[in-house]
């Protein structure tokens, strides 16, 4: 059990962490190491989003050897396997217990306001004051549904990734899955296997094999340093932060789930969902190019890996280099789909997520509602954010990415607290 906090409703603390997921807990651990007083506020229980906002079959995209947090790692027998959600929840709960994290569960933050120094944090269970704030409330709070969803006829059932659990909950009939990141492909495969014909609307995507030259692709991304690439070293960090999750699936067979695998199973590929007009869905004619871009990009990554293997003379590699068949696109890809024909009964939006900052009453959001930050250091005194895509490194949004980010950002917070303490002492002395 994690240490339960018995404080008064109104508390004052040096650092307040919002969210007891892997990011918030990693930060808590490193603050504890620095003897910095802090509390974690959690709207539900530890690992809440993993418990309540994921579909049944989901497994991590990263192998178990990568599941590690500061001072803690996966210790089971299957290093190359992928955790199911129940295992992820146990892993994070075990971590909370191991670190004796000061979690206040069932505490929903309703607003955060700036004070002259620090922040006032209102919750359903009273008010807190803090000098510094860690926003670790997740990157996947709100499923994004494009505006075009409003134009769909009412008899078409629409679901987001937060609604979907498994195919049995779906109506009979065809399903249009919109989105071609890991989630879109995984669900297209699972729903198609349930006997419901699936059409997949494909936008820009990231293709990679699950296993390359005998090892998990994550291994190569790790050893070549790709996962550690820093946010201030990439050409266009805004673009890098918007890149969809790679088309991967965690399975026992370590299978590769790409568009070719799906179309071989009978899933129909279309371009990006571009519009709805007169009861017809319109697909973009740009399917060939998004596939070409992804194929070229995958080959560049494989070139990097092959280059690393020959440069280091890596003896661990037993299999020769190879390249995969280009993504197959129909000679006449479908551009429209008549909804009155009954071909589609459900539309599943796998179109990404956005964090929910509706409670954040600090002028730190950009015009698209994202926190303005420099490698996690928000544009507000003593505020840091964690767990967002490419926050500080390519691996930032993965469980194993939390450690390095928390180390950097806890150091920043320690300095901030020292500095502001110094100032107040000087002011008191004057």
């Amino acid at each position, binding site marked *: 059990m994690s240490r339960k906090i018995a404080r008064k409703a109104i508390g004052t603390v040096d650092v307040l962490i919002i969210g007891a997921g892997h990011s918030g807990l990693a930060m808590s651990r490193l603050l504890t190491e620095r003897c910095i007083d802090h509390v974690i506020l959690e709207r539900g229980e530890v690992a809440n989003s993993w418990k309540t906002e994921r579909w049944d079959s989901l497994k991590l995209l990263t192998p178990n050897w990568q599941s590690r947090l500061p001072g803690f790692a996966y210790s089971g027998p299957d290093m190359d396997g992928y955790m199911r959600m129940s295992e992820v929840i146990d892993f994070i709960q075990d971590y909370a217990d191991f670190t004796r994290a000061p979690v206040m569960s069932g505490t929903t933050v309703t607003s955060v306001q700036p004070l002259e120094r620090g922040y006032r944090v209102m919750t359903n269970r009273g008010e807190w004051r803090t000098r510094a704030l860690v926003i670790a409330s997740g990157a996947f709070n709100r499923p994004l549904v494009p505006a075009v969803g409003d134009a769909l006829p009412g008899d078409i059932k629409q679901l987001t990734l937060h609604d979907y659990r498994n195919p049995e909950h779906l109506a009979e009939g065809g399903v249009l899955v919109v989105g071609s990141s890991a989630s879109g492909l995984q669900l297209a495969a699972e729903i198609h296997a349930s006997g419901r014909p699936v059409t997949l609307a494909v936008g*820009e995507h990231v293709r990679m094999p699950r296993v390359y030259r005998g090892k998990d692709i994550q291994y190569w991304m790790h050893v070549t340093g790709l996962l550690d690439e820093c946010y201030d070293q990439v050409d266009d960090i805004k673009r890098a932060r918007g890149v969809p999750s790679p088309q991967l699936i965690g399975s026992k067979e370590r299978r590769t789930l790409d568009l070719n695998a799906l179309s071989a199973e009978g899933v129909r590929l279309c*371009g*990006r969902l*571009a*519009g709805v*007009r007169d009861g017809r869905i*319109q697909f*973009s*004619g*740009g399917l060939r*190019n998004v596939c*070409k*871009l992804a194929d*070229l990009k995958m*080959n*560049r990554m494989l070139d990097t890996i092959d280059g690393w293997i020959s440069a280091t003379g890596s003896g661990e590699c037993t299999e020769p280099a190879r390249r995969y068949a280009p993504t197959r696109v129909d000679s*006449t890809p479908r551009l429209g789909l008549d909804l009155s024909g009954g071909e589609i009964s459900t539309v599943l939006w796998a179109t990404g997520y956005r964090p929910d900052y509706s409670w954040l009453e600090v002028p730190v959001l950009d*015009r698209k509602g994202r926190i303005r930050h420099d490698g996690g250091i928000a544009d507000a005194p003593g505020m840091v954010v964690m767990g967002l895509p490419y926050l500080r490194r390519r691996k930032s949004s993965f469980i194993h990415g939390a450690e390095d980010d928390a180390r950097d950002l806890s150091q920043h917070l320690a300095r901030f607290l020292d500095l502001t303490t110094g100032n107040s002492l000087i002011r008191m002395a004057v």
Partner: protein
Amino acid sequence: MQTQEMVIDNGVNVEALLGAREALTEAPAAAQFKWRATSEWAGGTHTRSKVENFFGLGEEQKHRQAFQYDTDHPEIFASRDIGATPVEVVLVGLAGCLTAGVAAVAQNRGIQLRSVKATIEAPMDIYGILGIDSDVRNGFENVKVYFEIDADASEQDIEALVAQSQKRSAVFDIISNPTDIDVVTRKS
């Protein structure tokens, strides 16, 4: 002994483009452009169109000169063939847009271009425009673009140039995705 400094010059000022991108990121209003064309019927199927002004960077802008375009239909449609057909002008727009994109991306990636040629072909079943078969659409059945590029780069890098150019092309987007059109008519 000669040493040659490799200077990549495709005649595209990438620094200016990147500078504009940076500046506009902080000024979303300045990024709101309006493109315009005016036209007048010139008898038969001949139309004369003009492009001169546009709006951008928060104010009215003017091309260095007014550009005129004649569109008509070929003689086999019993027209006088004074200009390209409007559908051909669409292809001209696509060629111009993709090629400009190839040049800009090449400059940004340090690739010297020697020649960039495009051939575009777009099949059309004119049963649509003639109203013979309502199942046939008026527009192109598809568009095929063939690029032939001579540059100091690998085959793969050249393919990547063209792919990136499509990704950032306005005309590619206009043709491949639907756009709402509002036609307002007034008796003069």
